[in-house]
């Protein structure tokens, strides 16, 4: 049995037969640059459930998901999310929850050491945050992501 796909697109060139992969595995594919590192960080910091949800949000949630008005995941929101997760140190034993909003934004939810909710929504323009314990909310652009990291770090 072969998992080789039929030729549905025509590349500008082909590699010589000896260099070509004869059997394409659908289970293993080359990762986009940085993708493997990023997936590992998401898995380590947010857990397998969030990692799996993110995969579904990326590949299976298209225009019209949910009740029909859901938008696909925003590439800018995804990039902002990854930059945040890479740099932020979540509290120990904390398992943040990950959601896709109807607008195509990613939202992270976790609790601080006092049990107060922390929500960060990654939008195309920047991150909106809400801290229940201090009743603080705000918005930072991705250029100023370090401000958000400082804001959230003590919790």
């Amino acid at each position: 049995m072969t998992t080789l796909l039929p030729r549905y697109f025509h590349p500008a060139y082909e590699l010589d037969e000896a260099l070509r992969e004869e059997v394409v595995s659908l289970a293993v594919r080359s990762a986009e640059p940085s993708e493997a590192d990023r997936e590992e960080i998401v898995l380590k910091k947010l857990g397998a459930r969030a990692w799996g949800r993110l995969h579904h949000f990326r590949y299976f949630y298209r225009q019209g998901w949910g009740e029909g008005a859901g938008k696909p995941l925003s590439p800018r929101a995804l990039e902002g999310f990854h930059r945040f997760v890479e740099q932020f140190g979540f509290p120990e034993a904390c398992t943040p929850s990950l959601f896709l909003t109807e607008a195509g934004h990613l939202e992270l939810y976790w609790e601080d050491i006092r049990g107060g909710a922390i929500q960060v929504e990654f939008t195309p323009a920047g991150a909106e945050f809400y801290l229940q314990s201090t009743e603080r909310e705000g918005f930072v652009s991705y250029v100023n992501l370090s401000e958000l990291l400082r804001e959230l770090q003590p919790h």
Partner: protein
Amino acid sequence: MNKPFPIPIPERLPRKIDPCPIVEAVFEIRFNTAEPWRTLPGLLSEKIRGRYREQKDLPLAQIPEEVRRQIPALTHQPLMQFLSTDFLIQLGPSVLSLITKPNAYPGWSAVETELRWFLDRVQEAGFVQEAGRLGVRYIDFFEKDIFPSLILDVGIGASPLHANELQITTVLRQGPFTARLLVSNSAILGTGSAAKRGSVLDLDVWLGPLDFELFENGIAKFGEAHLLVKQCFFGLAKPDFMASLNPAY
């Protein structure tokens, strides 16, 4: 991972080389849209049909949408093509690209003019909600083993491997740009009914979603990506190979 860029950037770059090894140059935009796929070809065609009169479906269009969605490798593949005399435009549910005709690269100036026109038409068509990637890819072909002509080699111990069939792919980063470089000395280039065997140097340079605003600085960013492609190519070339390309400055 801020490593120094390993390709030396030449102080001056040729304006033209002869023979030109460029098989194809691709200027790609990946995007999100609120429009269903079935409406996209009509929205784009309405804006470009004066210049791109012929259109055809690509073979991937035969695969049902539900099946395409299950295969991440197909996510950003085009499904149809619009043709003008000098360029092609390819369109998929989340990708748009302007491509030069095979082995007929018209020069950067002509590309830039067409890109500017193309982006204006895409903006008018109004279906790009958000752009996620802006990429420039140049594919060069040589009817010889290219490795001895480049300051790039792969070996095992002291033995170079380029006498064998060899392909290397690496990813380099320069500022906000990511570059994927593929070099192979055993490639087959289809040229109409014939096929040529030789080497390819395939360089794809792109920006991520937070590093450009398509309708504000898209042309400038395509220009910067093109410049990086050019710097990489000429930076990799050994002096005698460079001379063989008859550079005009």
